[in-house]
């Protein structure tokens, strides 16, 4: 018995999809990941943002020692790291969609996206390192 062909080979859509992928036009079936990431982080950021805002209000008049002690506690460290990463991921998707709309040359778009990605990676890495330093060093 012949090996059954994969679902993709069965459909006439396949060739169009491959062509679209080659030409970078339209959907190549991986656009949903970004869309889903944006929605997931949006939902996650509602409780995380409320927690962070409440913590900031509590810490607003305190000194560095109090803030460092708060950041070194396990729950705060974990939630702040998740908050920063979710926020940056959400921001990256959002900023890229703005860039796609307003930057109309391919070179400009590439440069802007690389810049935004670099800033996001550096900000995320620096924030996580800062929290981890306090958490591990207590």
């Amino acid at each position, binding site marked *: 018995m012949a090996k059954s062909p994969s679902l993709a080979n069965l459909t006439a859509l396949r060739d169009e999809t491959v062509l679209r992928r080659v030409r970078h036009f339209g959907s190549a079936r991986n656009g949903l990941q970004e869309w889903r990431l944006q929605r997931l982080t*949006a*939902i996650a*950021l*509602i409780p995380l*943002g409320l927690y962070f*805002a409440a913590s900031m209000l509590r810490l607003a008049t305190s000194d*560095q020692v109090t*803030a*460092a002690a708060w*950041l070194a506690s396990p729950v705060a460290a974990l939630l*702040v790291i998740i908050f*920063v990463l979710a*926020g*940056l991921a959400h*921001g990256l998707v*959002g*900023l890229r969609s*703005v860039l796609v*709309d*307003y930057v*109309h*040359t*391919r070179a400009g778009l590439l440069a802007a996206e690389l810049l935004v990605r670099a*800033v996001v990676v550096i*900000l*995320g890495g*620096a*924030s996580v*390192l*800062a*929290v981890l*330093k*306090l958490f591990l060093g207590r």
Partner: protein
Amino acid sequence: MERPLSPFMFPVWYRFQITSALSILHRLTGIALAVGSILLAWWLIAVSAGGELFATTHAFLASPIGVLSQRLRGPRRNRAADRARLALCVSGLGGLNGKISLPREFDRATR
């Protein structure tokens, strides 16, 4: 890059709608929040480093410019409301169909 572009169509081709105005506001506040995330990373680093850097950061955050840039982070509440509204709209829940509907142009295009 020949895809149709939505920006700049708003005042010319589309009449004013509360939905598109909210969408534009959502984008603007989103960009402000993204810029504000620099402030967040800076604060975390300052707490971690302590000493001089924290003193400088605290002085900046308490200064008028710092307070203003913190106010820029205020839109988070509006964005949470926006997200909830969008989720309701997209999922078709909550009986919002009468109050918040898609622009008339969509209606005409799909008819």
